[in-house]
């Protein structure tokens, strides 16, 4: 088992039931996350990045269903686990820091209760010991342990997000999934939370799946970055390589500059148009309506993710290795 990567996702497909029929929110997404690595998953809202994250632990709420693929964690397929196995797997192996600090904690329970119940459920410790550990966890993220008896609304946004991080570390899991952990925060607090995450990652040797819409945030941490568009992975490369030489026009757009295959670089403010409606995806490449370089082939044939350089994958007809 030692040779298996920490997490390996193969051809994951997630479908949402909608009033107008089933919709593929995640379409054959594959990636590997090695031990100690920070993998960034980037995309606009609706790109399926949060859906991927929650599908990994199978905590997507109805009307979602996983209709294909494998999620191998340390070699075990999460999609084949029964409820008991899943409960033991969750948080102990993979914990979450969710986007909105406000809503990720139940407003009617104290933060102490919400940390302690994880410890009591998974480690069967006594309440007293769990309380001590919870106090220690708060100290770890720089919060006064007296705050254990506070309710979420009594804390600032930044404090709540640090509580979320403390909670994620409670069972010392090998993988922490961070889904937009700093989005709702102002810039100063954002920076403070990010440096806390960086510090803890070094100290505890965590592996992190970092999900965001913000390239600049992810560039500070991630060793590799995957870019999602309309539920599909369109590019994946080591961070440096991706920033130096983005090959997919969408990635280039996200980075704020557009790399023309035929001409010199020119500045471009964002990407024209808006993400496609997943219920009515165009034929061929989902990005072609917003792509300045789209060719005839893009309308007929969906590009597959292929290797274009060492450890660099892109799904675009216009890119040649």
């Amino acid at each position: 088992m030692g040779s298996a990567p920490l997490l390996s996702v193969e051809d994951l497909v997630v479908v949402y039931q909608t009033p107008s029929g089933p919709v593929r929110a995640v379409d054959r997404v594959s990636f590997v996350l090695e031990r100690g690595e920070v993998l960034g998953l980037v995309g606009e809202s609706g790109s399926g990045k949060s859906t991927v994250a929650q599908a990994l632990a199978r905590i997507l709420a109805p009307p979602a269903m996983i209709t294909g693929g494998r999620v191998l964690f340390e070699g075990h397929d999460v999609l084949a686990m029964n409820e008991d196995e899943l409960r033991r797997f969750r948080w102990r192996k993979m914990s979450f820091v969710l986007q909105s600090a406000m809503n990720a904690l139940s407003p009617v329970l104290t933060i102490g209760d919400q940390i302690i119940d994880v410890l009591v459920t998974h480690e069967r410790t006594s309440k007293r010991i769990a309380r001590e550990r919870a106090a220690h966890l708060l100290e770890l993220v720089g919060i006064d342990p007296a705050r254990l008896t506070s309710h979420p609304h009594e804390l600032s946004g930044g404090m709540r997000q640090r509580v979320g991080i403390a909670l994620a570390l409670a069972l010392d899991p090998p993988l922490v999934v961070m889904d937009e952990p700093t989005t709702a925060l102002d810039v100063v607090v954002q920076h403070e939370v990010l440096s806390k995450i960086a510090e803890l990652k070094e100290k505890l040797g965590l592996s992190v799946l970092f999900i965001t819409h913000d390239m600049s945030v992810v560039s500070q941490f991630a060793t590799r970055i995957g870019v999602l568009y309309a539920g599909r992975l369109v590019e994946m490369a080591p961070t440096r390589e991706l920033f130096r030489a983005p090959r997919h026009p969408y990635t280039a757009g996200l980075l704020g500059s557009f790399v023309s295959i035929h001409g010199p670089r020119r500045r471009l403010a964002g990407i024209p148009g808006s993400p496609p409606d997943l219920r009515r995806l165009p034929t061929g490449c989902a990005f072609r309506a917003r792509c300045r370089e789209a060719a005839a082939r893009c309308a007929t044939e969906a590009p597959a993710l292929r290797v274009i350089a060492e450890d660099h994958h892109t799904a675009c007809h216009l890119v040649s290795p």
Partner: protein
Amino acid sequence: MTSTKIPRKASAGLVILGVFFLMALLGPLVAPYDPSAFVDIPLQPPSRAHLLGTTGQGQDVWSQTIAGARTSLLVGFVAGLAMTTIGAIVGAIAGTFGGLVDDVLSLLTNVSLVIPGLPLAVVLAAYLPAGTKALLVVLVATGWAWNARVIRAQVLSLRNKDFVAAAIVTGESRLYIVFREILPNMTSVLASCFISATVYAIGAQVGLEFLGLGDMSLVTWGTNLYWASNDAALLTGAWWTLVPTGLSVALVGTALVLVSFSLDEITNPRLRAVSDWARALATRGIRPGASTPVVRDHG
């Protein structure tokens, strides 16, 4: 245009309502007897001559049920309409104008919500001259506030929508905005308010008449139950004097609620998506559990 099929619940509700409407409309043509006339020996169980038996006053129960539908539905729907109109006006004005106007109207709404309806209705009905008009006044006076509250909340959420904001910016008058921009855009809320108001009105009307308030010489579902109870229907075992009317009230109420459920599903598509999801899983023999289901056969 994609064909939007009417949900099963709504069609069931509409069919039931249709039957009762026909009954109310064609009443005198369908009813075999004069509903208030003494036609046979009192308290006879259902028979071929009297499909639903006779009352303690020797009237035909089937004819009385049909005649009751006419008055009770009429009062119910008129009162429901009035309550929705008043609720819409008060709620929309409170929600659109905001500030002091909203404070005063909201306070009025909340005060009238916390005062229990039936005892107030009894006092009102006791002092007003017995009759259908007084009954309508009593029903509307005790039932308008809930609609006002619901509609105000809906208006507040609509106020932030673009088209309303645009109207405010272009300097349209507030009243114009209320009646031309806001109310037309909340037809489904108004419809479900109308439905719940009508359900309330029919129930409250039956209750007041059962108490002996109102015009006892009329034949309505409420007076039917009043007289049945007065004639000690239960102690004589004459269940047939109670069951048809009670069942009619419940069927109309249920039908209205079913229609309102479907309205809910149409305005809140997520509800329907989840039922579709559960059905899709069920066809594959999967019971929805606590975790995201894995369905392999799907393309």
